[in-house]
């Protein structure tokens, strides 16, 4: 049995919030560089160059890459041999509070969806916890911007719609999003499960490093097909036209009801941020 204290969790979550907002994961940077190399449309290439420059400025000045420092989506994998000394969710929220205040990050959480207002410290975190085996606690912070989140979509397809139905729905979602989600985007796609699980799958897919295919070759092929077809839409970086509309497509699938085919598309942007720690 390993004991992990609330203070440890709080301090780590604070660090992860700041780190994620100031520096993109290596895989996202690599994907941006590769996209710039492959881009043959001059305007689009220029934009991709400016996005790289933005990363440099953010690193030099130690300021956030993007002003929308997001909703703090937190994924927890908790080994069943870990004992948390304190309140796990409270510790995470305290970490978000500290990170967003001390890290000069933007407080973007409305206190109530209809009556609005602001919680002033970017809490609450949006926490998903998984109990696993072992004595490790893994925490991933994924600050999610709303320009792209707002372009996300979920549809309950019919089984007869099949794979073509999924492709059509994804392309329709990307086309109607157009320039809004700050293309080039990153797409997390959930297929199967239930109404709630499919949305979760689509967000979970954003945790996978860009360029790492689905372990099932059938779905890996579908990811590649979707990426190709999306990048033939011509939307391009910022929607100004070009090849690079999307950097990466990741699919997470699970069994579903015989009568259903749920599909969810969680749209993310070129500022796809995540930072993890294992305690």
């Amino acid at each position, binding site marked *: 049995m390993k004991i992990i204290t609330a203070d440890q969790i709080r301090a780590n979550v604070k660090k992860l919030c700041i780190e994620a907002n100031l520096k993109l994961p290596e895989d996202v940077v690599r994907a941006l560089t590769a996209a710039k190399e492959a881009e043959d*449309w001059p*305007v*689009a290439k220029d*934009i991709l160059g*400016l*996005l790289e*420059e*933005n*990363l440099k*400025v*953010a690193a030099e*000045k*130690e*300021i*956030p*890459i*993007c*002003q*929308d*420092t997001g909703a703090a989506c937190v994924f927890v994998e908790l080994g069943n041999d870990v004992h948390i000394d304190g309140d796990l969710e409270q510790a995470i929220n305290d970490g978000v509070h500290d990170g967003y205040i001390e890290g*000069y*990050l*933007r*407080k*973007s959480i409305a206190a109530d969806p209809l009556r*609005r207002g*602001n919680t*002033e410290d970017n809490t609450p975190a949006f926490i998903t916890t998984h109990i696993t085996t072992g004595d490790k606690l893994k925490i991933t912070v994924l600050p999610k*911007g709303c*320009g792209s989140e*707002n372009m996300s979509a979920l549809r309950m397809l019919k089984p007869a719609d099949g794979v073509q139905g999924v492709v059509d729905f994804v392309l329709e979602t990307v086309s109607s999003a*157009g*320039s*809004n989600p*700050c293309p080039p985007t990153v797409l997390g796609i959930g297929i199967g499960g239930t109404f709630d699980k499919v949305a979760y799958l689509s967000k979970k897919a954003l945790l996978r490093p860009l360029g790492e295919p689905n372990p099932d070759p059938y779905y890996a092929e579908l990811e590649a097909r979707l990426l190709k077809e999306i990048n033939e*839409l*011509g*939307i*391009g970086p*910022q*929607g*100004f*036209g*070009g*090849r690079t509309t999307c950097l990466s497509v990741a699919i997470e699938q699970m069994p579903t009801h015989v009568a259903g085919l749920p599909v969810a598309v969680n749209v993310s*942007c*070129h*500022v796809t941020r995540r930072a993890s720690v294992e305690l």
Partner: protein
Amino acid sequence: MEHIIKTPVTTEELKALKAGDSVLLSGIVYTARDQAHKQMCECLDRGEALPFDIEGSAIYYVGPTPEKEGMVIGSAGPTTSGRMDAYSPRLLDLGNKVMIGKGKRNDAVKDAIIRNGAVYLAAIGGAGALMASSVKNAEVIAWPELGCEAVRRLEVENLPLTVVIDSTGQDLYETGPAEYLKKTAR
């Protein structure tokens, strides 16, 4: 083509700007996003004055991150403009000439742009650190309780922008992708 523009602007000088052109904008730019737009329209409903002179003005849809000590502003890239569509025609009709944001506008905004000889410019979405480099001064001038959504008076120097909708209603979000697809069609 690249244009150097200084605010406040006139309809006459905006005529030269075509969808797809680059603009380096200097002068005063006012920040406003959802809540500030709502409050501005409520001011107008009550017959009160707006917090800044709207004639020839540039409005930037941005909610910056808090500035660190010694900096004038934090990260300051554009937010999605479509959420301001409900308010923009009214402001354009009152003399607002330049809107800065990212993403599509609706037909009502396009019509108001044409009617008033205004323009819609895009800042680079997600390049908040880079955009902030052009901001030389920032001061909250209205509704400080709105936090990042308060109205700020920014002094900018060579803010790099792209003309998305020009004063004739040409829209780069339509023409840009179409042109790319035409050139690459095999």
